[in-house]
């Protein structure tokens, strides 16, 4: 009976999880149906746009992950320490609500916020020496710009999750630490953060996996900035260009496969080593 109940899902899993992966494998190692070994990979890696795209994504990831971990943990600890329940709940709610704007909508909103002529924080932008939209999205600012957008959309959800995890710390543990004379900073450093480790690892790994996939932010910014943001800024954009502009499905599959392998490896690492999910 288990098979009957799970069959519909299993069919979708095969069609949209397993088959596309296998097909990408097939395409990545063939050309016109003939096996060509690693030729497609070699061609893509040698592309003059490939290395810069890797560097862009890597730089973005470093900035984004460091900021995410530090600020999310800090804010979760602060919000958790607020005693007034209504205040703590409202602050969490405000942090969380931008999560409703994902994808193109949040990038679109940030186009306005980043444009000094209409921005609600134009004073701040000018103070940073940014007088025009084109200046704000110049290449050296992009990793920070993408970090701000991703942080604005996604951090609230993680803060709520960390807050929940902080609530799960037994009250006796916190009590004991207080009686021992530890202040809030010592308690946070020696008790709370070590007990959050699994969740921090989860956040880090998931965000790393998602960050390697960078697509919609540079894509929309590229469209908005008259090409100041290159259309081949990230790896996924490059894979997209291979498929759509060069009709080179094999090259596109090769890049996608590299990204997919990274994502699967990170996910599997977490499922088997993270100990956060029920595998029974």
């Amino acid at each position, binding site marked *: 009976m288990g*098979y009957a109940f799970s069959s519909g899902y299993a069919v979708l899993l095969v069609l949209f999880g397993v088959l596309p992966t296998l097909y990408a494998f097939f395409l990545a190692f063939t050309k016109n149906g003939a096996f060509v070994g690693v030729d497609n990979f070699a061609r893509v890696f040698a592309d003059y746009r490939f290395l810069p795209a890797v560097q862009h994504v890597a730089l973005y990831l470093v900035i984004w992950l460091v900021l995410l971990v530090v600020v999310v943990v800090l804010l979760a600890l602060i919000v958790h320490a607020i005693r007034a329940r209504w205040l703590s709940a409202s602050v969490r709610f405000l942090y*969380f609500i931008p999560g409703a704007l994902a994808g193109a909508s949040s990038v679109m909103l940030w186009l306005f916020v980043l444009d000094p002529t209409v921005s609600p924080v134009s004073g701040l932008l000018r103070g940073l020496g940014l007088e025009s939209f084109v200046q704000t999205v110049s290449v050296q600012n992009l990793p920070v710009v993408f970090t701000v957008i991703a942080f604005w959309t996604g951090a609230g959800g993680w803060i709520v999750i960390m807050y929940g995890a902080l609530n799960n710390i037994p009250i006796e543990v916190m009590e004991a630490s207080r009686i021992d004379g530890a202040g809030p900073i010592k308690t946070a450093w020696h008790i709370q953060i070590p007990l959050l480790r699994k969740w921090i690892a989860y956040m880090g790994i998931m965000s790393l996996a998602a960050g390697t996939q960078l697509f919609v932010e540079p894509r929309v910014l590229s469209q908005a900035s008259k090409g100041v943001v290159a259309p081949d800024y990230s790896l996924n954009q490059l894979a997209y260009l291979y498929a759509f502009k060069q009709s080179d499905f094999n090259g596109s599959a090769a890049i996608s496969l590299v990204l997919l392998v990274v994502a699967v490896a990170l996910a599997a690492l977490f499922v088997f080593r993270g100990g956060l999910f029920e595998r029974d």
Partner: protein
Amino acid sequence: MSAIDAPRRPVTGFAPGRWVGRVVAFLVAGVFVLFFAIPIVWLILAPTKDARQLLIDAPFSFGSFGTIVDNWNALAGFQQGIVWTWLGNSALYSVSALAITLVVSIPAGYALALTDFKLRRPLLIVTLVVMLIPNTALVLPVFLEMSAVRLVGTPLAVILPFSFFPFGVYLTFIYFSTSVSADLLNAARIDGASELRVFAQIAMPLATPVIALVGFFNFTSNWNNYFLPFVMEPGNKSPIQVGLAELLSNVALFNPTSAGSVTIALPVLALATLVSVAPVLIIFLFSQRFLVTGMTAGGTKE
């Protein structure tokens, strides 16, 4: 332990260090409240102004209700009301996928939690791994597959991939394995109920909360998805998220090459952004508690 042999430090009285710490903590929390809230407040106010007011007036000033109507008319008039087509497409794709997701995910989660079959464990582990892969990772492989079977450009090209929602199966699995006891189902089986009846008449009525939860997460992720429909559904088949980026190419400020053709004023673009997120934003506002339960569902194993 040390609480016994070490003297307790008095925590009462005036402690300047502690007060400085509190003030700093409140400031940090407050700065981030502004960071998260300012763009949304601005977005809600922007469509009340016309293009000139948006540039000149204070950023948080309110224009007028009449201007909202003007901006809406400008948006609805763009390419003979294509914004309606985009919204209709979004609704069609999101809701159809939602229906299929519920029909396949709930029984699958039930089977993983409360029945026993040979492939149960492998299926569960594959589900977990796939659930943790960012959904953008499979977009181009799915596109290449769909293009091989010539489905690109049809509604099915997004509806079917949207319907594959391992996170929903996992949520259902967790729910059934923690909230519904196998004994209850066995009692019904002893009374002679068929497997289908056990599922339909005992498990399903208990599953309402998780159905709502899976429905919520699936709908919002479908509605907000950009990359998949962007590659699958060109032109007037696009959902609103992709349409929004299309509007952007018609904004004179961002794209001077479009001068001469129909242009979109900035407040109209802001209104379009607001409209594109409205359904999800409304659901978010009314179901916050709900969401938190879902997001922390993973961590049942401590």
